[in-house]
């Protein structure tokens, strides 16, 4: 079937902000979809609230709406744009749920919009638990014994009849939010309740726990004619019980005989045929390791994290093909880009092994549970390709940036090995290795972990090998063997105690979808220890080569923004005539798409791995400025190796990051910064803090995302912090700074060393103390006098030039007591680049990349100095994933906690903020409901003056006020009526108010002291389930009042197409 030519205009729904369970993979999928649609000559209308994405780039769609992803705004876009079709299968669960809602509400029908891809009926069959089970039953596919419950009583009854332990899965949620395993009735009460709360339709599935079975996934495709293929099989190293997003995964499945493999493959294809999928679909199975018994766990009728992984693991572009299928093509009509000779209706043959390793945010949430279960906690992942399982696993581990380059990890807790082994946490793999290394048998480890013996034997092989070479040194052939198993030289030196290693020349093989059966045309490489190198064999264009370093796994503080910047740098350099190589190891991203750069190396970003590629590619220079700290970290190494760093020099980067050198620079210009010192010991830290006066800000130098940053208000906290930091071992000093709670401002600057362009200044709603990544940022600034604006521009220009910037530099300022301070200078792309590029129309990465290679800024057509602001206000609102990490401390502070962001664009600040907060998931009452709105305040004594202002504004708006004892007393002392409530530690009054619908917002600053954090965490968890926003800064609360006092509603905001923004 050829393309359906009646489809001329298509609305694509993106997945919104990055949250746990929904990350960069949907930018990759969405960007592919947009490109395919454009290639097909279709008018593309895109809606996505996430400004950090590549898919929302000007040229990827014709009309781009950075609008809230809710039914009303999408309805209005449909009404305005009148698309022929809706593509919702590439925007994750968010887009799929929206499409279902639009369909249910009759909006698609009313505006004659066809749902492209899988039809609504198919989506429902996969998503609705009951319909799904009926469908499976009708084709004889076994499901896990289960029951559906909509009340707690039903849930308990279902669990009783199935028999404990049971797994609870809420309906229609991402990444398994709110689910869990209940071992008995007591646990069931709690888990069932949270599951029911988490489900938007208050429905949970209670199913028999089959923990310990193998977990196998198939990524499948089906076209409208009924052709079906299984693109890739995947096997979780961790058995059923740990969410697949939190499991170490291998592709293809490694422990299945053909009989088992074909049984499950056939089941997948039968399932997608019965459901009627049109496009990509993920099928998950549990397989009893002792028989052919299996059960279907789940079917996702859309592209997913797993499909992104499968695409990168095989080279088969699932999202691209899904889009073509949605347009009416059949699989056999679509060519396979990689070979150019074969068609997309085939199943990739791998001749390597892929390992995926998750990236967890536990480093950000000190003290929160590292236990893994059915609720996903990872923010990102890395993928590695090797010819051996061991090699791929070692690449994955060292690429995950968890300070490990082998499987030897010191235990985090002083507990007996067996106890740790039994616990399913993020250290499981390393604990298993430790056990095997200490002589525990494969059988014993298997009994405790149920990890397939195949994997355990592999790990044991490595453990035994390490033990041997540690004892007797490297024998003949041992070095070669260690390289084959994936050990970097640094680790070999450490393990064997040998200093002189012969060195190793790596070769690179191609990922070609077909195991070399056909000549491939797409240069996508991984390293191996073979002699024949397919990269060296590949004919080069003769153009000079530049290597761009990517940003590794998505984590808090280093998210999709850096992939945006890396990709743009690659595109620009290609355009101006370079042969561009990218190195990255994140399977979710656009940067690791095989046609982003001229050559892709899917490799870890460590010194040895990068160096090996440099030896093959012989670049004229390497770009480190766009890959976040992952890439910046390599600057010193590369520079010492004599490799040219394109853009700002290693020397300048060091000046910005080195405390003393930076202070000298500032002094030279008479620029102030909060006083501070660099310390290396506990005593020095305590002395420094006392000299500066509390509160102080403590942080290690060379960090991004405020990792391990804290505000200390006491000597005890300083001691506690230093002990923790020093225990981990530090290379660079710890910085102790005066903490000044002033107004924060941020600029991104482009400089070529002569001229400076400042695309925009952002002002934060929250005062200093809340990490810039967690602050609401407003562009252009709303409260900045001309004098300060000039001063900021002046200082920014002087700093950029003094640092010898060749490219981007991000500078953060603070105004406190009418004094301007510089807080931080980062000589690299920052988190705000995509957002500012999109709202100002200045292609910042493009300009910065040109500058790096010597083009003068002046000639680029964007002028110099401060770029004129458009007549819009654009507000970035952070988005958090506390639903998934519900025991984490959610009080905002200098350590970044948000996983993603959304943008609100409006003519006024209030309109932009209204859109931004709605897009971030804040429920905002309509004007007529505001008199029924209630706000609960519980603040620290020092916040009383600010709290009273907020209370007054609530009062003026007719909002009901509730406050805890002391706060209530402070508020009523100025004559404002407030209902006092008991503290959360002493009663559950607040919970009752929330459940009764009396409280719509909670403003809570009372948990800065550690002893009440626990109370707040419990309160916050309940509030999240009930959809009640919690604010831990009175500045945020004040901003909310601006909105509650405004006339805006989802119906009356301006829909802003960023490709057609009013200028000037």
């Amino acid at each position, binding site marked *: 079937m050829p393309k359906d030519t009646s489809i001329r205009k298509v609305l694509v729904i993106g997945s919104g902000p990055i949250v746990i369970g929904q990350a960069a993979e949907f930018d990759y999928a969405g960007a592919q979809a947009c490109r395919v649609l454009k290639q097909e000559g279709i008018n593309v209308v895109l809606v996505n609230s996430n400004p950090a994405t590549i898919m929302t780039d000007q040229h990827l769609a014709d009309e781009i709406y950075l609008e809230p992803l809710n039914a009303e705004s999408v309805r209005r876009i449909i009404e305005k744009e009148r698309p022929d079709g809706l593509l919702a299968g590439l925007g994750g669960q968010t887009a799929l749920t929206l499409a279902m809602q639009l369909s249910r509400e009759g909006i698609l029908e009313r505006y004659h919009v066809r749902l492209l891809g899988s039809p609504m009926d198919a989506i429902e069959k996969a998503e609705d638990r009951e319909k799904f089970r009926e469908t499976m039953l009708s084709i004889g596919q076994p499901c896990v014994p289960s029951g559906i419950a909509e009340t707690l009583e039903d849930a308990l009854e279902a669990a009783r009849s199935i028999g404990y332990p049971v797994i609870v899965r809420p309906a229609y949620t991402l990444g398994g939010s709110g689910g869990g395993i209940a071992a008995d009735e007591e646990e069931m009460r709690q888990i069932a309740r949270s599951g029911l709360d988490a489900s938007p339709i208050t429905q949970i599935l209670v199913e028999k726990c089959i923990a310990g079975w193998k977990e196998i996934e198939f990524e499948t495709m089906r076209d409208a004619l009924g052709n*079906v293929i299984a693109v890739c099989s995947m096997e979780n190293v961790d058995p059923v019980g740990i969410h697949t997003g939190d499991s170490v995964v291998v592709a293809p499945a490694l*422990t299945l005989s053909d009989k088992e493999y*074909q049984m499950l493959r056939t089941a997948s294809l039968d399932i997608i045929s019965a459901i009627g999928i049109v496009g990509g679909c993920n099928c998950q199975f549990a397989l009893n390791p002792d028989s052919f018994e299996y059960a279907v766990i789940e079917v996702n009728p859309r592209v997913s994290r797993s499909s992104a992984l499968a695409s990168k693991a095989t080279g088969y572009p699932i999202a691209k093909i899904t889009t073509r299928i949605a347009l009416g093509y059949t699989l*056999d009509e679509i060519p396979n880009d990689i070979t150019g000779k074969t068609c997309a209706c*085939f199943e990739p043959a791998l001749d390597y092994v892929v390992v995926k390793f998750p990236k967890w945010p536990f480093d950000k949430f000190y003290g929160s549970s590292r236990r893994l279960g059915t609720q996903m906690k990872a923010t990102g992942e890395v993928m590695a390709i090797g010819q051996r399982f061991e090699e791929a696993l070692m690449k994955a581990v060292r690429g995950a940036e968890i300070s490990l380059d082998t499987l030897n990890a010191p235990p985090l807790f002083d507990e007996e090995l067996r106890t740790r082994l039994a616990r399913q946490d993020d250290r499981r793999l390393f604990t298993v290795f430790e056990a095997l290394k200490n002589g525990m048998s494969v059988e014993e480890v298997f009994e405790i972990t149920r990890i397939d*013996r*195949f994997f355990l034997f592999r790990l044991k092989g490595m453990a035994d090998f390490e033990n041997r070479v540690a004892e007797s040194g490297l024998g003949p052939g041992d070095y070669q063997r260690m390289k084959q198993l994936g050990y970097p030289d640094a680790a070999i030196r450490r393990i064997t105690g040998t200093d002189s290693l012969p060195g190793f020349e790596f070769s690179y093989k191609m990922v070609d979808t077909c*195991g070399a059966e056909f000549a491939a045309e797409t240069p996508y490489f991984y390293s191996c220890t073979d002699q024949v190198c397919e990269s060296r064999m590949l004919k080069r264009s003769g153009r000079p080569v530049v290597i761009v370093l990517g940003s590794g796994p998505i984590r808090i503080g280093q998210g999709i923004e850096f992939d945006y910047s890396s990709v743009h740098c690659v595109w620009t350099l290609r355009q101006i005539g370079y042969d561009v190589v990218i190195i990255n190891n994140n399977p979710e991203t656009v940067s690791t798409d095989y046609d982003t750069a001229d050559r892709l190396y899917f490799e870890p970003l460590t010194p040895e791995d990068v160096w090996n590629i440099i030896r093959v590619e012989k670049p004229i220079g390497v770009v480190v400025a766009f890959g976040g700290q992952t890439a910046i970290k390599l600057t010193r190494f590369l520079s010492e190796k004599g490799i040219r760093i394109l853009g700002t020099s290693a020397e300048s980067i060091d000046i910005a990051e080195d405390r003393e050198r930076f202070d000298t620079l500032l002094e030279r210009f008479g620029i102030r910064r909060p006083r501070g010192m660099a310390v290396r010991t506990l005593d020095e830290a305590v002395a420094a803090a006392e000299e500066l006066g509390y509160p102080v800000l403590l942080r290690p130098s060379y960090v991004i995302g405020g990792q391990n940053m804290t505000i200390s208000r006491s000597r005890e906290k300083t001691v506690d912090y230093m002990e923790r930091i020093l225990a981990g071992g530090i290379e660079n000093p710890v910085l102790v700074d005066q903490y000044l709670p002033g107004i924060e401002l941020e600029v991104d600057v482009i400089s070529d060393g002569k001229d400076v362009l400042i695309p925009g200044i952002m002002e934060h709603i929250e005062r200093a103390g809340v990490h810039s990544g967690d602050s609401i940022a407003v562009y252009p600034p709303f409260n900045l006098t001309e004098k300060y604006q000039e001063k900021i521009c002046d200082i920014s220009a002087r700093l950029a030039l003094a640092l010898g910037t060749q490219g981007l530099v991000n500078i953060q300022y603070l105004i406190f007591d009418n004094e301007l301070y510089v807080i931080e200078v980062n000589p690299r792309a920052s988190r705000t680049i995509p957002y500012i590029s999109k709202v100002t129309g200045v292609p910042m990465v493009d300009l910065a990349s040109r500058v790096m290679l010597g083009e003068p800024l002046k000639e680029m057509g964007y002028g110099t100095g401060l770029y004129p602001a458009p007549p819009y206000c654009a507000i970035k609102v952070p988005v958090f994933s506390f639903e998934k990490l519900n025991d984490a401390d959610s009080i905002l502070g200098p350590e970044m906690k948000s996983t993603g962001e959304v943008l609100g664009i409006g003519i006024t600040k209030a309109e932009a903020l209204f859109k931004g907060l709605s897009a971030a998931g804040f429920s905002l009452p309509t004007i007529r409901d505001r008199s029924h709105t209630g706000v609960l305040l519980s603040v620290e004594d020092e916040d009383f003056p600010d709290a009273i202002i907020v209370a007054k504004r609530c009062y003026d708006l007719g909002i009901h006020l509730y406050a805890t004892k002391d706060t209530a007393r402070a508020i009523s002392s100025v004559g404002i009526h407030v209902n006092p409530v008991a503290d959360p530690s002493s009663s559950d009054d607040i919970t009752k108010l929330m459940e009764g619908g009396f409280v719509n917002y909670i403003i809570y600053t009372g948990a800065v002291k550690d002893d009440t954090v626990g109370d707040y965490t419990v309160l916050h968890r309940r509030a999240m389930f009930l959809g009640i926003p919690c604010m831990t800064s009175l500045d945020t609360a004040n901003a909310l009042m601006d909105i509650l006092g405004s006339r805006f509603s989802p119906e009356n905001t301006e829909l802003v197409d960023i490709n057609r923004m009013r200028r000037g």
Partner: protein
Amino acid sequence: MAYLVLSNGAVFQGQRIGACVDRVGELVFTTGMEGYLETLTDPSYYGQIVTQSFPLIGNYGLIEEDFEGASALFGYIVRELCETPSNFRSSAPLNTFLREKGIPGLCGVDTREIVRITREEGVMNAMICDEVPEDLSVLASFRVKDAVASVTSREIRTYPAEGAEKYRVALLDYGAKRNILRSLRFRGCSVTVFPAETPAETILAMDPDGIMLSNGPGDPKENTVSIAELRKLLGRKPAFGICLGHQLAALALGGDTVKLKYGHRGGNQPVRDLATGRTYITSQNHGYAVVSESLRGVGEIAFLNANDGSNEGMSYPDLNCFTVQFHPEAASGPRDTAFLFDRFLERMGGLTHA
């Protein structure tokens, strides 16, 4: 240390697995990622040294019930052979089997490079040896000969249907995989297996409801006796041919076959059903193909390879015969075209016939 020497002079170094003997054979590769047991026991690999493009082989050990026949291949090349397999059905590591069956092999070889050379230069002979010979003429002179004769059954034997017998099928064994037998018996056919060169009269004397032409090794044109007997058989009873059976039927009806540059071996080949437009993923193992044009006016092309357009199946409506190049019996590989056995049953009188 041992070697794989290719007739183009390329030498690969590796470690011995299996039997410690030197052996010459035709070097081929398969891209199947699982199913090594079926590959090792598929009689169609007679005379060949098989390279596995997937690097981890032997992970689930040895499972005898998955064997497809007597092992006929001449050598086995893998990147890594698993010594510590894991599967509830596994009885031993794979190497035990290779040694017992006298199959020589190598591990630790850059198998991808072997595939690449084969893809670029075509199938060639190779030798597994402990020392690289100076004179490679032994490689040049090797031919896969008497292939079918080496693997066909020696006697006529009947296997009962599973459950009630619906049909009686005569299976011409050119090196049949067991799953052809299983697929028929499972569907209620009793199956009588005949040696490849059994005279047509003998077969017709049992008055079968249908004739099944099996897969098998080697150059189809070598089987002149079988082709002649087949000529007498076709049209007398409904017939269904697979792989070599498909090629022999074509030759019997005046068609031609050609040797492919490097064949199709694996479980991911797309085949288009010209009658419906559907494309199926199939299991394949063949080095020769039927020349579509040679059968113009004799039969209709039923299936084509969606990648290279080669002939994947014929239909001879006048003779009530249909044949396919791929393997609907799978084992190993996808089972997506198993419905062809049902089609065969329909040809014999319908699925519900008793």
